């Protein structure tokens, strides 16, 4: 006769197969096209940045879990996602110490001090990016020219500006934009200067669609983000064509696609209800547009998302879905 003591747990006794580590793994799969493009255009610099960020980030995660007396949960893949997203938010030729500090800020200040996975109010990779941007603006805005790996796998870098930063500089010094930014396909495919992961809009959109298809994220944040952004940038451009880049350049350059599909949709730091997510997306879109058009920085995605992250608890508290048959409050 078999044993007569069986496992007793709460119901349900069957579960969906998706687990936290697989959720994170799917985000990494979705980033593969963008990673591939960055390696294609930045070769050695890209590889170096990814490898260093991953090593530093995982090391800090393990170290601080140990210090906090917790189980070392690198196997939930969440630190790996943060590492890759942080690397994508850094200039391709970032010095190693910048990466080290960035990794520390992301994992320790951005995540572990709040209690680790799921507890942080702000997107860790963005906390690190903004910290570095404010502290070392020169290093964080020194872009290199993308060179396809097949043409030249070199270790030299030629500096280049991003369309957004060049336009902003011209606008500040001349009062209007002079350069003709009409090389549209290049922007779309990724042949432009910029942070590692943001250059190819098409690769990021592909990855984002994969995540929506896999139901890891829903369309609510990306769509409301991009639409509300367009709704401000488009009329502004129509009225002041010499003071603004075309909405399409705005849409496909800078961190917008990376932000809309991968940073704003970070489930830990975005609202939990669909309605809340739409409000959050609109907030991100409006703030990004306002910062890009009227702010001192050429880029506004990181600031916009971080600002909206701060509103998430409020949104979650007030945007509660109506429960079935719920009685009206008296």
């Amino acid at each position: 006769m078999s044993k007569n003591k069986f496992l007793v747990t709460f119901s349900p006794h069957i579960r969906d197969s998706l687990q936290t580590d697989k959720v994170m793994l799917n985000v990494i799969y979705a980033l593969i096209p963008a990673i591939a493009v960055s390696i294609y255009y930045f070769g050695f610099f890209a590889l170096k940045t990814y490898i260093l960020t991953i090593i530093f980030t995982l090391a800090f995660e393990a170290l601080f879990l140990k210090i906090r007396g917790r189980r070392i949960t690198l196997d939930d893949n969440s630190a790996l996602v943060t590492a890759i997203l942080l690397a994508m938010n850094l200039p391709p030729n970032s010095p190693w110490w910048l990466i080290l500090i960035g990794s520390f800020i992301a994992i320790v200040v951005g995540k572990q001090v709040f209690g680790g996975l799921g507890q942080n109010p702000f997107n860790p990779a963005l906390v690190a990016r903004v910290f570095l941007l404010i502290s070392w603006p020169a290093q964080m805005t020194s872009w290199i020219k993308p060179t396809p790996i097949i043409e030249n796998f070199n270790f030299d870098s030629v500096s280049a500006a991003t369309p957004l930063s060049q336009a902003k500089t011209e606008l500040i010094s001349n009062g209007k934009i002079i350069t003709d930014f009409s090389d549209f396909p290049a922007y779309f495919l990724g042949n432009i200067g910029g942070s590692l992961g943001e250059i190819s809009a098409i690769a990021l959109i592909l990855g984002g669609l994969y995540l929506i298809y896999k139901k890891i994220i829903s369309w609510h944040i990306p769509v409301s983000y991009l639409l509300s952004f367009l709704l401000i940038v488009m009329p502004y451009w129509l009225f002041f064509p010499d003071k603004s880049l075309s909405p399409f350049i705005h849409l496909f350059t800078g961190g917008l696609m990376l932000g809309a599909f991968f940073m704003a949709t970070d489930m830990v730091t975005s609202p939990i209800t669909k309605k809340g997510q739409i409000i959050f997306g609109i907030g991100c879109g409006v703030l990004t547009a306002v910062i890009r058009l009227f702010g001192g920085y050429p880029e506004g995605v990181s600031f916009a998302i971080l600002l909206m992250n701060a509103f998430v608890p409020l949104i979650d508290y007030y945007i509660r879905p109506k429960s079935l048959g719920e009685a009206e409050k008296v």
Partner: protein
Amino acid sequence: MTNGFIGGIHPDYKKTLTENKPIEKLPYEKDEIVSIPLNQHIGAPAQELVKKKEQVLCGQKIGAGKGFISTNIHSSVTGEVVSIGNLNSPLTGKVKGINIKITNPEDSPKKIDTNKKFQDIILEAGIVGMGGATFPTHVKLSPPKKIDTLIINGAECEPFLTCDYRLMIESTEEIVKGAKAIQEKLKIANMIIAVEDNKPDAIKAFREFSKGFDFKVQELETVYPQGGEKQLILSVLGRIVPEGKLPLEVGVIVHNVATCKAVYDAVENGLPLTERVVTVTGAVKEPKNLLVKIGTPVSKLIDICGGYVGEPEKIVIGGPMMGFSTNTTDTPVSKATSGVIVFRQEDLPSLKMTNCIRCGRCVTACPMGLVPAIMEQFAISELYERLLDWHVLNCIECGCCSYVCPARRPLVGYFKTGKRQVMNIVKERENK
């Protein structure tokens, strides 16, 4: 096909294990012992009517309902009372019950007096809601309000279970007649039998009777928890039962197909409720649908199915979504036991827990429009007032939130325990 409600999940149904197995009558032998719990229903436990060493007949009333929300218990066998004591119960751990040693396994149940008011026959027969909630049926059949629609619940949305399905195709006429009896006695205008579309044979079987007996058959989308009372009413009629209220509030009563069969047996044949169909499935050699006498230990059901395949790890009484795991196979079958499911270690999902990653899948899955991820925080922090404000009392404990949770948080578990605390708060408020 309709699915009026929000949320829900599509689990792996695994019904093919037993859906083509006709109901088999479980054989009994002399000297076997059945253990009949006195509390097999919601409400007050029944009061025992027999003493140790007393001879009882099959179908004899051995427990009397105490108060309105309670019901009678009958002996499922002819035999001798060997002891009255604590029995294992998957619900409450221990429950008072009567152990009876069989003296004549062939005996059929003693008839009850059917020369009474309809509701009294149902009470006399000890009928309860057999879908799992076990609410005494005579109470449900005494609505204080006008009812316009009777819905017969043949959704059977729980994975693995096929006991209702087999009953629907093998005892179609009895179910229909039982349901019609309810409809006529309560003077209800409409009757609808609702079945999920993964049971086309059952739908077909009912449609053959629908003309002659004047009722509607409604095909429902296969989605869990389609058979939840509030979900079913929304899907079938588009009516929303207000929070904290019963279906009769919107002019509806819902009865499970097996309950209708029991009503038919009581009213037409004078049979008390002493047996039910149980789906025995999972890691057993030969999964089956069995007609079992109430009080039979689960171990006997597993033995008749050829025993275990591999090493059993968990035994679930009921469905895998809302059923209870039991630590011993001595647990007797009760009026609520729709299934016995055996899981091996390798059949069980990984329950490796992480912090909540706020993915929101629980919010999407909740058929009651709740926000489990945030409510869990309130439950952990014992903020019961907040839990009440976030409508935890509207939770139907279907388990969808826990099912989809990638962090494997025991969400529904927190709400089950949290609800009790919240009920205390509500009572305190009312007393003020």
